[in-house]
């Protein structure tokens, strides 16, 4: 065991991984529910929601800890990871509610059948477990295991509608690309392990700090990041995304669009912060090149996705391309974590900007997909050209959809705008490259306005015969929509509240600050030295993260 690892008593370690344990037990419990009486769908839903709730409580129970590394340097439990996990669990719970409330009364053969509920919920919980671990992983083995644990249930979820040809096509693409990219990741990790002699992320970072990046190590890192790029759906690895999103049931699409990308971006931020924390003059040039690489990757991804989104008419495909674009924006920002130029761009700013973006993105994504799901449930329209007359038939839904789409675009007054401003502010700390990236962000945002407004145009300005009946969302769906809309309005309109959130985010411990398990990491970069770049001096103790 590394000398610097805090030796926690076993029960404390247990408490820190209790959320994950709860999710794993929940998976088992959900699968077992059919053996206990009938009404398997209701019972398993209740069990799954209870497991999510208990895991959430367990997370809140870890907040007093600040940051800790447990299990011999495998996982680091800190406010950054715990915030993401809390957001992920809330999101998963809302996705389950969305699924229940948008199920058709008379299911078509292709719909997710209610008697399959235990299987679906087990896969959802399993994917959440993998993603929660991804946000905490600080060891190459754990990164590999967590990524795979998040992937396999996702493959199953993508192909959940077994008789649907689109779904099975999407799942095939997903699993083939996923298997290939995980193979690349493992081979890359084997090279990294060989060159650095360690599996610990902090150890790898220290090696890079001392020796720079040799060509072989660069190959290894490329392979490793290829696996992450697949989860993020950045450009060379994006082909699966639109097909999977179109074929999968809407609730699964909702889940994948946020959760898989968010977990991958959290992991990316953690890795890059570890590298920059241990950087030195020997490695500055190499890390700068890596940062440029990630910035270019993000910029190309966002641009590519926005250009292809322009011609999409299927609402789920459109939102799929939109999610790729958002992943691109976040990748661009994550690149700043490496220091562009070296030394600028404090880790805390990047982490908090990313967390804020994830928070708003989770809810605008959830809202837009929920409206789409309700429209599919009530009218069967998946093509946005069939959205004609929806503004007359259901004014509330049309208004909410407009709000979510405008927030995705970044309309001032909504959460999506503030989130993008924060990304831009973080980018502006990165010198010339940062301003290029801000320009990319701005142009992309303007381009995206076109395709975000297309569904709105069809809802409001295309006439139908006016004979079709009005419809409304089920109460539970409506509740999700209103909560999401209020959250976006709150984060967008109330600067004071946004400020408070800012402070809470900025007081997050930089990942790996005392989580390295390797002597010397803390000395190389003290988390306190970044105060000048914070938007506001940390007033609260750092354990005070926001938990929703």
């Amino acid at each position, binding site marked *: 065991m590394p000398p610097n690892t805090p030796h926690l008593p076993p029960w404390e370690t247990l408490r820190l991984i209790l959320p994950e344990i709860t999710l794993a037990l929940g998976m088992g419990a959900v699968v077992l529910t059919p053996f206990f009486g009938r009404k398997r769908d209701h019972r398993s839903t209740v069990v799954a929601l209870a497991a999510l709730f208990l895991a959430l409580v367990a997370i809140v129970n870890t907040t007093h800890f600040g940051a800790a590394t447990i299990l011999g340097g495998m996982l680091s439990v800190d406010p950054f990871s715990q915030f993401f996990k809390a957001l992920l669990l809330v999101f998963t719970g809302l996705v389950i509610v969305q699924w229940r409330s948008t199920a058709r009364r008379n299911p078509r053969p292709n719909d997710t059948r209610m008697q399959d509920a235990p299987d679906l919920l087990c896969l959802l919980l399993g994917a959440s477990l993998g993603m929660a671990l991804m946000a905490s992983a600080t060891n*190459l*083995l754990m990164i*590999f*295991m967590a990524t*795979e644990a998040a992937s*396999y249930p996702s*493959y*199953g979820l993508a*192909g959940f509608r*077994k*008789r*649907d*040809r*689109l779904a*099975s*096509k999407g*799942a*095939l*693409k997903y*699993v*083939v690309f996923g*298997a*290939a990219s*995980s*193979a*690349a990741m*493992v*081979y890359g*990790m*084997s*090279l990294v*392990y*060989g*060159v*650095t*002699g*360690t*599996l610990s992320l902090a150890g790898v970072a220290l*090696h890079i700090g001392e020796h720079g990046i040799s060509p072989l190590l660069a190959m290894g890192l490329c392979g490793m990041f290829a696996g992450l790029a697949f989860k993020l759906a950045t450009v060379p690895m994006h082909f699966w995304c639109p097909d999977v999103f179109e*074929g999968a049931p809407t609730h699964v699409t909702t889940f994948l669009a946020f959760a898989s990308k968010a977990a991958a971006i959290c992991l990316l931020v953690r890795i890059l912060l570890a590298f920059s924390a241990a950087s030195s003059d020997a490695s500055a040039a190499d890390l700068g090149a890596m940062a440029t690489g990630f910035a270019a990757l993000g910029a190309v991804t966002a641009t590519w996705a926005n250009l292809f989104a322009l011609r999409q008419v299927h609402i789920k495909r459109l939102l799929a391309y939109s999610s790729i674009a958002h992943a691109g924006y976040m990748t661009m920002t994550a690149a700043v974590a490496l220091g562009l130029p070296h030394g600028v761009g404090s880790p805390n700013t990047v982490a908090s900007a990313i967390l804020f973006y994830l928070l708003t993105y989770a809810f605008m994504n959830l809202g837009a997909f929920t409206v789409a799901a309700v429209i599919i449930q009530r009218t069967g329209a998946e093509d946005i050209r069939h959205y004609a007359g929806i503004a007359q038939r259901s004014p509330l839904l049309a208004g909410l959809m407009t709000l979510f789409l405008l927030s995705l675009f970044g309309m001032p007054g909504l959460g999506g705008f503030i989130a993008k401003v924060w990304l831009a502010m973080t980018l502006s700390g990165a010198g010339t490259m940062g301003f290029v990236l801000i320009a990319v962000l701005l142009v992309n945002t303007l381009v995206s306005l076109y395709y975000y407004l297309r569904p709105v145009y069809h809802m409001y300005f295309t006439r139908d015969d006016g004979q079709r009946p009005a419809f409304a969302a089920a109460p539970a769906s409506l509740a999700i929509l209103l909560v999401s809309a209020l959250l976006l309005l709150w984060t967008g309109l109330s600067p004071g509240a946004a400020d408070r959130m800012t402070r809470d985010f900025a007081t997050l411990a930089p990942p790996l600050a005392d989580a390295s398990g390797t002597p010397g990491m803390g000395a190389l970069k003290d988390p306190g030295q970044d105060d000048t770049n914070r938007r506001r001096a940390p007033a609260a103790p750092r354990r005070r993260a926001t938990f929703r």
Partner: protein
Amino acid sequence: MSDLLLTISLPHFLVVSFLLLAAGISTMLTKRNAIGILIGVELVLNAAAINFVAFNHYGWPGVRAAPAIDGQMFAIFIIVLAAAEASVALAIFLNFYNNFGSIDVERADDLKA
């Protein structure tokens, strides 16, 4: 006879691993059958496993050999996860075959639902 040929050392393992990697990548790129691609993936995974075990045992020149058995553990996890991945992938392939009557991945692109 040179020493290199008589004693098995790190380069021997790396050559085997590299050959496996090359075979795996060429299989992935040329096969149109989904199961063929999966076989290519398994080859690459095993190449990585050989790397891990070899690096763990010999260490990279200039870098101290890892004291623990990290690499060997990683190799075992690769084997376990490869099995899990194959089972998920085969289930999806089977379902695809039921729907389309073929597991040709290039045709999967053209087939309309």
